[in-house]
């Protein structure tokens, strides 16, 4: 079986994109003809980053058919102001494009609008001029956006319960307080976002990437009285009646727990704009799209096999069977989620984890290739740091590798571990690592009881530690909610007052604040490595990071690198700084990085439009049946 590395089709290192100037933006919006554009603005044909949206395709696409996809869970609500789960999001996105998309090569693809910035601090957003709301709310203007941001997202108190409200606040360096980001309308179709500090990654952040909007006319009814219930139960919001021409499909029916159907939107705005690849000209290419909710995995896969659905996720252990079916094509895409061993360095963990040398030694103990090939069936990539190998910020000259090739083995582990632990009570008694009283060192590793694959990984790690490091490791299953409440949440003991606290997950200094139950290692959680906005992972690597529940205090000042990188708009400099940061992270081994599992999807043989890259669904409105 091909190794994980071969299966994902990297689109190669992306070309450097300079920051967008105003000139490019205006051209984009139809001010000048397409022919006058230079090649580097990324919206021409046959571009390297466009995957298979090649120039000759548009002639062969025809509209027709119903695309049926299978989902294991139903959406919770179409009223995206109130929910934040991925399935609901996907249902909404079928009818509302959002402001822009990000292509796999980390390039912005404008949908409803585009941005421009001179200094990376003030961003001007420009909307297209042919965007019409449904249900009689007229044209989409900057007024709708500003009203929504100021009165709902940034409302204090957060009466609507909007889940991402916190993203619209930043610390104002002048006052030292968290304040709402200033947003102001500058024209009928333009408005400005004025950050307090430079942040070149703003367009890639979820607050703008695919951000939706709501007509002022609807919100007005509820803002004044702060009527959360009314907002939640508003009929138009719950049936996407306001979607107008803003998305490829319009809402048709939603039978809860059964199916969600949308039909082709004849008036889809994107058909009518200049400067987009030809294939969008007649988009979308399905008459109807349906999501069928099938919670039982065997039924879902059975439906894929029998042709009753056109796409479904496939667990890695079943993928092989589907590879061999003539009517199904298996597509593997990389994902940014990282599987790693979290070491508990708080006082209720194992103290030697605090030593960098110990962690580096342990990095030799687990064979990552084996995890990828045997546990994840080859549908994964080896992980060495907090970024995937195919990301822009991964500099392999900086990243140190562990657990592969000759950087793995019992000898290598033991010699390093022994020297790392010299001077402590721990030492080797023959094959076993023992503590000061001669007792075998025994550590626990926790995994999610609802995930059998995790269990297998945990057992494999236990086995490797046993053979290669002489440490006896006991796998323990725990439910995810128990894990979060008893092992992740940390606080100082009752009565004591820690000198600082960084939230419920990092309740204080690691010697003082601990979780309710003790633990040594865990693989319960998969963390997002944010390949588009790498600065988001800063909190993992600072002493007072809000997410630092495991008590890691870095030797080097990694967060300073993050901050510096965030503050500069020079793309090249940013890459250098992040590359260095991730290199340092691989050196310090705060986690036992293991693998980054890929996503395996099966498609009916006739479906076209997807590719083997991360975020391959970015242009799903252009997919079609062959």
């Amino acid at each position: 079986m091909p190794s994980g590395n071969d299966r994902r089709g990297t689109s190669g290192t992306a070309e450097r994109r300079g920051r967008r100037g105003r000139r490019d933006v205006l051209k984009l919006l139809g001010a000048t003809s397409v022919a006058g554009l230079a090649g580097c603005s990324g919206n021409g044909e046959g571009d390297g980053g466009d995957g298979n949206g090649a120039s000759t395709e548009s002639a062969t696409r025809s509209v027709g058919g119903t695309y049926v996809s299978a989902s294991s869970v139903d959406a919770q609500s179409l009223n995206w102001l109130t929910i934040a789960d991925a399935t609901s999001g996907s249902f909404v996105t079928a009818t509302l494009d959002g402001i822009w998309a990000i292509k796999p090569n980390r390039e912005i693809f404008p949908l409803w609008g585009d941005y421009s910035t001179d200094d990376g601090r003030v961003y001007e957003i420009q909307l297209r001029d042919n965007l019409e709301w449904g249900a009689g709310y007229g044209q989409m203007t900057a007024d709708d956006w500003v009203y929504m941001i100021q009165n709902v997202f940034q409302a204090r108190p957060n009466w609507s319960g909007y889940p991402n409200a916190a993203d619209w606040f930043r610390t104002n360096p002048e006052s030292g307080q968290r304040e709402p980001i200033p947003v102001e309308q500058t024209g009928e179709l333009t408005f400005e976002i004025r950050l307090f500090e430079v942040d070149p990654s703003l367009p890639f952040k979820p607050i703008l990437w695919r951000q939706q909007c709501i007509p002022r006319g609807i919100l007005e009814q509820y803002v004044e009285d702060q009527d959360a219930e009314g907002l939640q139960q508003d009929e138009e919001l719950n049936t996407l009646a306001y979607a107008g021409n803003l998305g490829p499909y319009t809402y048709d029916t939603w039978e809860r727990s059964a199916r969600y159907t949308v039909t082709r939107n004849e008036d889809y705005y994107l058909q009518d704009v200049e400067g987009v690849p030809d294939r969008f000209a007649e988009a979308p290419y399905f008459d109807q799209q349906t999501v069928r909710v099938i919670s039982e995995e065997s039924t879902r896969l059975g439906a894929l096999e029998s042709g009753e659905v056109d796409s479904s996720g496939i667990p890695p252990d079943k993928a092989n069977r589907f590879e061999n079916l003539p009517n199904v094509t298996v597509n593997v895409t990389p994902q940014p989620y990282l599987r790693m061993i979290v070491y508990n360095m708080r006082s209720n963990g194992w103290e030697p984890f605090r030593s960098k040398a110990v962690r580096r030694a342990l990095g030799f103990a687990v064979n990552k290739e084996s995890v990828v090939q045997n546990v994840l069936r080859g549908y994964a990539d080896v992980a060495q740091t907090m970024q995937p190998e195919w990301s822009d910020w991964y500099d392999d000259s900086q990243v140190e590798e562990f657990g592969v090739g000759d950087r793995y083995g019992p000898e290598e582990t033991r010699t390093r571990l022994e020297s790392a632990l010299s001077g402590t009570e721990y030492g080797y008694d023959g094959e076993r690592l023992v503590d000061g009283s001669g007792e075998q060192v025994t550590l626990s590793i926790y995994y999610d009881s609802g995930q059998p694959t995790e269990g297998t990984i945990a057992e494999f790690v236990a086995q490797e530690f046993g053979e290669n490091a002489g440490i006896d490791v006991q796998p323990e299953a725990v439910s995810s909610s128990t894990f979060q409440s008893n092992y992740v949440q940390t606080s100082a003991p009752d009565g004591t007052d820690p000198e600082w606290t960084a939230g419920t997950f990092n309740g204080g200094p690691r010697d003082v604040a601990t979780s309710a139950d003790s633990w040594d290692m865990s693989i319960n959680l998969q963390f997002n490595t944010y390949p588009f906005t790498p600065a988001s992972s800063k909190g993992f690597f600072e002493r007072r990071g809000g997410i630092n529940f495991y008590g890691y205090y870095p030797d080097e000042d990694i967060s300073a690198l993050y901050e510096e990188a965030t503050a500069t708009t020079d793309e090249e400099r940013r890459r250098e700084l992040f590359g260095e940061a991730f290199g340092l992270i691989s050196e310090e081994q705060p986690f036992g990085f293991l693998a980054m599992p890929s996503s395996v999807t099966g498609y009916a043989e006739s479906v076209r439009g997807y590719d083997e890259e991360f975020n391959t669904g970015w242009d799903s409105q252009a997919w079609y049946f062959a």
Partner: protein
Amino acid sequence: MRWYVVRRVLWAVVATFLILSVTWGLLAVTPNPAAEQMQFQAAASGGSAEAAEEAFEARRGLDRSPWVRYQEYMTNMVTLNWGWSQSRSQPVIEAIAAALPYTAIYSVPTTILSILLGLAIGLYSATNQYTKSDYAATFFAFFGYAIPNFWFGIILLLVFGVQLGWFPVVFDSDIPFFSLGMARQLVLPVVVLVTGTIAGVMRYSRAEALEYVEAEFVKTAKSKGADGYRILTRHILRPAAVPLMTILVGDILGIFLAASYLVEVVFGIPGLGQLSYNAILAQDTSLVLGTTLIFTFVSVVGNLVQDVAYTVLDPRIDYGDR
């Protein structure tokens, strides 16, 4: 007798009230995994866990005192304003009204079939005790009883749906209810459920019938010249119906409450079982309370019907002024 029924109905109301209160109480003290998820996500992406938690609570109305929330829920229950389902973003009544027909459409045929078949086979077994067909029927009944429903359902789906293609694999909720297409896609779920429940009915009716097969009045009936069929239905079944009522009501409830979830998950039927289970997982209080009410209602009415049926069926039982 009338008084008896009235008192039972009143007690039913009290019982419902108690059940609802206990359910609400349990929900109120359980930690909410969705809330924890949001907090974690917020912290992991550099935001504030507390803010996420507050936002969550504000949205769910959880920031008011328990007593206030309790009162509000109970009054709403009574006035049939069963609230808004968070996890489905529709009124609870709508959610239940949408799901109920899907449960009914397979549970009614199942109940009818299991009772009819179970009784028939059981009576036949009783009157033909220890013959080959008796053994075959017993074997079949216990096979169905022992096999786990969900596993059996999956196997049937794979064989008849995927391999042979005789039945659709995924339940299509679009098909009109009383059509051939709907019947076709209900065959497998009904088969799975009937094989599971028929054993109980069959063995029980066999045992009861056996008691009466040897009864003297059966001999009397035979001596009067009644034929086998008449004896079976009028003289064995009718007296045996009294104890049989006990398990019949239990059976119906069983299908409604327990079996329905498993079958609904495997076959993808959007019925009450799935609805209530997902509601519990999502800690969608209003919906959980709404579905609990439905089940309570079914139980209570079922038991009342059973008790009344006793008096009707067996003239020796008379509640009088009890």
